[in-house]
């Protein structure tokens, strides 16, 4: 009897939490399809309105000015995110792999030195970035900002990949070595294709960070036509003050790329994060 009550209360808690998580996403999608009048007449009505699909088109082309629309913000975000991804993966994955062959002690030392970087708060970095970028003429340069986001992601990428490579079956690598595949060839042709799972997990975490953070880009990208969507969102309420439908459509658009990527690859990500809890 007692366990039954416990089981039921567990279900109630789990369903309540799921509703709390999903309802905002539902409301944003709902309001994004409504006209202003429909939103104010009956915000929670589900069937009593005509879907306004053009809200999404309006949102895509809307913004503070004609050269700073959500479409432009999206392009900037994509440049930043892809640059960040190439930087962090290109640098962290080979290093995490080759470091795993050092002695345990050295691998551990290097790992500690690398992840010490995660404790440095971004506020401590932003002002120096601003000054350096200002003097080098790099302000409003999306690629340069992307390199920063990529570099800040190196510690996490290194940590997760190194953990994976340490457990990589050594027999396979020895066989490749005997076959005359050099160290670099082994890494590129054998190890990389077998490491898809963790590389995907690291990539998504990196893309989410570069797509959603604005603490750095708000300072380094101050011209509106160079800003990413994360900064563009800040003036959404002001930019769309008269028109809530397209504003919610814009919110949905801004969240969609990362959410889609996450849903498609969720298996790798949830597994990767849960591993963090198991292995300690």
């Amino acid at each position, binding site marked *: 009897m007692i366990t039954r009550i416990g089981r039921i209360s567990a279900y109630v808690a789990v369903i309540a939490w799921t509703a709390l998580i999903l309802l905002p996403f539902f409301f944003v999608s709902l309001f994004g399809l409504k006209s202003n009048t429909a939103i104010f007449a009956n915000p929670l009505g589900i069937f009593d309105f005509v879907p306004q699909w053009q809200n999404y088109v309006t949102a895509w082309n809307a913004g503070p000015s004609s050269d700073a629309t959500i479409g432009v913000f999206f392009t900037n975000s994509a440049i930043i995110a892809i640059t960040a991804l190439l930087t962090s993966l290109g640098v962290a994955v080979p*290093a995490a792999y080759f*470091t795993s*062959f050092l002695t345990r002690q050295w691998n551990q030392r290097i790992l500690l030195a690398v992840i010490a970087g995660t404790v440095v708060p971004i506020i401590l970095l932003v*002002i120096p970035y601003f000054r350096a970028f200002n003097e080098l003429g790099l302000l409003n340069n999306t690629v340069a900002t992307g*390199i920063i986001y990529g570099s800040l992601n190196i510690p996490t990428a290194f940590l997760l990949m190194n953990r994976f490579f340490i457990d990589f079956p050594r027999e396979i690598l020895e066989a490749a070595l005997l076959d005359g595949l050099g160290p670099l060839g082994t890494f590129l042709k054998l190890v990389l294709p077998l490491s898809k799972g963790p590389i995907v997990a690291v990539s998504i975490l990196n893309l989410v960070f570069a797509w959603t953070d604005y603490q750095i880009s708000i300072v380094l990208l101050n011209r509106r036509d160079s800003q990413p969507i994360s900064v563009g969102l*800040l003036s959404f309420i002001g930019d769309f003050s008269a028109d809530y439908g397209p504003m919610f459509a814009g919110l949905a658009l801004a969240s969609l790329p990362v959410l889609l990527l996450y849903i498609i690859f*969720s298996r790798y990500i949830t597994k990767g994060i849960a591993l963090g809890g198991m292995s*300690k």
Partner: protein
Amino acid sequence: MTNLGKQKNPKELSPSKFRKNKVGLGAVNRRWAIISLVPVAGLLFIFLALPAMYSIWLSFNKWPGIGTTKFVGTQNYETLFEEGRLAESIRITLLYTFTTSFLIVGIALLLAFAVSSNMKGSRFFRVVWFFPGVAPPAAVAIFWSLGFQPDIGVVNSVMGLFGLPSDTQWLAESATVMGPVIFAGIWIGVGFAFLVLLGAVEGIDVSLREASMIDGASRRQQLTQIVIPLIGPVLFTILTLQLIWNFNGFNLVFAMTDGGPGRSSEILPIFTYIEAFRFGRFGTASAAAVIGAIFLLILGWLGIRMSRSRQLD
């Protein structure tokens, strides 16, 4: 290298040779380890170590955002403490950081415990509960700040249904502003902590929990006497991570309140941003950032110590 040539003959692959070969694997890759670590060290030095040191240096200078810097000694720090504004910002930061982090870990632990006892659909929850952690914090901020608007907002509408006041100007009054902010912070943060803790809870030997159930232990006893002690180190690690992340919670709070009304939700990262980029006082801003970094170092150090001592138990 001569070693390798010999081992191409499969007949010579005795166990002892294999051990030598393992050394060989390390030896051929060692050079590559050094080469591949150079760009890691380079980027981390340029984008982390160097700017951090520069900030410390700048905190002893005056710099209005253009032109040259002027050395002023500890004056920036004195100003911050004299005005009492920094103390207020630190109070708000600690309130936000600790409330949010503890509630996140508490809720995540209960959810992980509920889902781990063979609940149907646990894969669905695993995926869905992390949605808020993936959505842009600024978008989340917009949604919840509209949700907390008087009368038209979702939260106030729901409160109205229960006969509670539905016209509270949550974000417009300094007494209530931290409520919605902490709420949104929890909404974002639980998913990640849940995934980590679920990994830990599922790592517990099933027979342990089954045995306790046969012994008549209630669910609460299972949680407090088996699960929590066994996952103690992970619990401390995730709490430390949450404290560090929420201490840096600029993205959500700035988009939600801009530090206002007045300065009543001005956590340290916002204080620093406004001090530098709105008032052009980059020296005092750097000093505030340095103080924040010291707080974080203490938090991180304490967290590591606590989780280590738990591990020894």
